């Protein structure tokens, strides 16, 4: 019976083991989650839930979330199989998030940044008015505070349920980036699996530095759409991060385990810090870093780092 099968499926997430989507290896769930959802056998990077991404990237205790009170409104009265308004409520309840974007300030290895993280579990990370607005605000905050903005992208594209409003979010986010550039600000985009459609065709692709996680699917059109359009089989590895690197479309591929280090290093370059020093601070080398949360969200970065280095010693 259908419902029994559903029941079993529902129990699965709580299970001890998880099967790798890529190589089929059975992975011990706890260990898998501790490794930030990277398969220990083949190195496949699973999509990381937004909150886990924040935890992986920000210095512990430094993330201060902003614009949490922004919520979408169904201006079109969009109904497919369920009304959009209902879907929003339901997804909100299921995920505990208000939409597909988390924005805040934090430090990464002691360096203050504005951080934006897309959450794929909220309607496929699709960009509607809330995602567009939060991205724009994150960029504007970075412009105002002269901080680098780091955006982790993970999205199926624009949110169809908001029709042309979602389309215009592409313009909104790019407009904000144009002003950041004019003010001399720096933006870093990390494209994770998957980043497609209107998100790739807007802010994700025009940041100053473009990083991708290994094997992430990144593209404008989805592979299925392309295959049906050209009526041909797609080449192996098409639209994967490695493919984009080869074609000169991204700056580099960084595995999840070293992303935090690499982003911090880039931020150091971007903000006039010494990347060598920033990278070799003794308190940085240990994996589980216990860093005391700074009292303020943005004291001058340089002295704070010294203080921290001392405390770690």
């Amino acid at each position, binding site marked *: 019976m259908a419902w029994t099968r559903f029941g079993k499926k529902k129990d699965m997430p709580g299970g001890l083991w998880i099967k790798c989507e890529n190589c089929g290896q059975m992975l011990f769930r706890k260990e898998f989650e501790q490794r930030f959802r990277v398969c220990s056998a083949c190195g496949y990077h699973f999509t990381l839930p937004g909150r886990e991404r924040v935890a992986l990237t920000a210095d512990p205790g430094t993330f201060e979330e902003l614009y949490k009170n922004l919520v979408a409104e169904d201006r079109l009265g969009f109904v497919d199989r369920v009304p959009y308004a209902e879907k929003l409520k339901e997804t909100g309840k299921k995920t505990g998030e208000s939409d597909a974007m988390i924005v805040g300030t934090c430090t990464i290895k002691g360096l203050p940044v504005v951080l934006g993280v897309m959450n794929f579990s909220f309607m496929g990370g699709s960009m509607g008015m809330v995602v567009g607005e939060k991205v724009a605000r994150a960029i504007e905050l970075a412009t105002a505070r002269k901080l680098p903005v780091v955006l982790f992208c993970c999205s199926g594209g624009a949110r169809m349920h908001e029709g042309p409003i979602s389309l215009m979010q592409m313009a909104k986010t790019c*407009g904000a980036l144009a002003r950041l550039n004019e003010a001399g600000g720096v933006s870093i985009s990390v494209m994770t699996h998957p980043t497609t459609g209107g998100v790739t065709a807007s802010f994700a692709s025009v940041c100053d530095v473009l990083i991708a996680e290994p094997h992430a699917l990144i593209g404008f059109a989805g592979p299925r759409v392309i295959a049906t359009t050209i009526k041909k089989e797609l080449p192996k590895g098409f639209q994967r991060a490695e493919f984009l690197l080869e074609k000169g479309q991204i700056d580099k591929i960084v595995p999840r385990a070293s992303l935090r280090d690499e982003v911090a290093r880039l931020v150091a370059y971007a903000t006039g810090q010494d990347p060598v020093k920033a990278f070799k601070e003794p308190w940085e080398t240990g994996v589980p870093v216990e860093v005391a949360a700074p009292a303020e969200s943005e004291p001058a970065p340089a002295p704070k780092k010294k203080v921290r280095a001392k405390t770690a010693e």
Partner: protein
Amino acid sequence: MVPTGPPARLRVDPANLGPALSESTPAKTSDRLADGLAFERPLLELQQKIQELRKLAQTTHLDLQGEVQVLEERLRHQTQEVYAGLTPWERVNVARHADRPLTTDYVEKMLDDFVELHGDRLYGDDRAILTGLAAMRGVRFLLVGHRKGKTVKERLASNFGCAHPEGYRKAMQKMRLAEKLRIPIVTLINTPGAYPGIGAEERGQAGAIARNILDMFTLRVPVLAIVIGEGGSGGALGIGVGDRVGMLENAYSSVISPEGCAAILWKSGEKTPEAAEALNLTSKDLLRLGLVDAVIPEPLGGAHRDPATTVDNVRRQILAWLDELAPLPLDQLLEQRFWKFRRMGMPIEVEA
């Protein structure tokens, strides 16, 4: 007074045409899908009858003026009725109509002079986007427009208006030229979407579109964008960031094609009309949502019935907007351009 001479099928008594024409039982969804322009059929039939009658009058020297007038009045009335009641999906089909004026028609009929400029200086010359210097009624500007082509050969060469990255890069390269020449930019949008193909992805389709959207915010000349047919998502927006954005009455602008939306959300191609409705893609919808500044009226029965008037209406709108924007200081112009898009789709704020 109908003479006995003409064959029965040409014997025209407008009263006799009544039932056949008013028989506008809505076609089944499947029928409409097969031919999205089914609503045009009675109009075309009527048009044909008028033509036949005129021919007959000419060949037989009969005075059929009265009959023709009655039929013309009926046609006008019926066209008005049909076009006022078009569903969004039917409008999409009007926007895609084979006889609808294309960018090349505007070049031919609207401009007094045009110098086409080719190539993106990087990879190639995408024929899906036409760029060149234009003069019209004493005003000079850069024209950028999607090209769809009329003949099969042209259509294939321009990929049915689906641009590759080199098309977007060519557009930006020419827009920078316009900036240097200090002439405004007018874009005519008519694309089902940017081309989804292997080469397009290899050369950075997403990045090219994103770069254009961003760079258009920095152009230090007035920019107008007008959707003349299809405004297909990112492919349209890639040349669509303007100080003023207009849309022809029967044009549409959507985040995804109704077919694509139906396939994804309804998992059924048959739901395309429903998807078109849900997507709020008509000019009226976009105006109501505050996403375009003006809807440019089309002649009765759509642009394809009267390209000359359509082109005139677009010309008038372009000249009016250029006039309006010319006195604005550039910094103010750019500030307004940014805020215009910045305000689109403001979410609501709730108490935490």
